[in-house]
């Protein structure tokens, strides 16, 4: 009976360890993809903003518009396009939040893996799992406390709020 319990425990531990490694591997890949997305977005937006301001300067300097209205309409569209690039700030904040959360998750997985070395004894297994659960709760709370509310904006008119 004791041999069977030991086998079950070892099996559970092996399964647990495999699961942790699997999740850790995917979380690490996701973090890497996010970082690349952030870098690409950053570069693309900076180039866009340079281009928009260059066009804006050109338009401001030109005198050959048929009407003043045409000039003003174009300038207004350019201004709106440049202002829309504010989403760069908001999306970067969101990406950073995701990265912090994924890194926190990796840390949780690492901690749980380190705690997985136990002796083959049923009483110890239950106690151990309870300790792991308690540690998970503490780590989870710590991770939650790192975050302020996410920027809730989902469209470009979200700033049209009369505050004070």
């Amino acid at each position, binding site marked *: 009976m004791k041999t069977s319990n030991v086998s079950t425990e070892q099996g559970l531990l092996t399964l647990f360890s495999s699961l942790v490694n699997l999740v850790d591997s995917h979380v690490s890949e996701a973090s890497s993809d996010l970082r690349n997305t952030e870098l690409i977005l950053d570069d693309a*937006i*900076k180039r866009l*903003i340079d281009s928009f*301001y260059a066009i804006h300067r050109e338009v401001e300097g030109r005198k050959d518009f048929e009407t003043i209205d045409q000039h003003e309409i174009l300038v207004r569209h350019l*201004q*709106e396009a*440049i*202002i*829309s*690039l*504010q*989403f*760069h*700030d*908001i999306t*970067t*904040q969101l990406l950073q939040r995701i990265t912090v959360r994924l890194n926190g998750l990796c840390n949780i997985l690492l901690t749980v893996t380190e705690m997985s070395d136990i002796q083959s004894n049923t009483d110890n297994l239950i106690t151990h799992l309870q300790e792991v659960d308690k540690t998970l709760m503490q780590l989870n709370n710590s991770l939650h406390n790192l975050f*302020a*509310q996410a*920027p*809730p*904006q989902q469209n*470009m008119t*979200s*700033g*049209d*709020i009369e*505050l*004070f």
Partner: protein
Amino acid sequence: MKFLVVDDFSTMRRIICNLLKELGYTNIDEAEDGNHALGKLKRESFDFIISDWNMPGMDGLQLLQAVRADPTLSKLPVLMVTAEAKKENIIAAAQAGASGYIVKPFTAATLDEKLKKIIEKLNKTE
């Protein structure tokens, strides 16, 4: 009127600085977080602060509190321009003495209107 634009995001500083220039305000300096901003405020003379909230080191609320606590800076108008739209944050900014609060993303018209409102109020109290 000399403005100090405080935001850790260079794109946002550029957008705000250019908007201010288009509105006719050309005397503008920048800082990338609250600590740098406070340093500049203590060394140089500014007339208006436009600040983000979420910044590393000293955030926008802490900067606002530091400005209001300093007798040489306390009367400066501070406009919070931030992605934070949570009610508690808006209340905290008001209680800390923010002169105005606009949420990103905002339009040129919103910024213009808010600046005019604050400057008008400032001129009335002087």
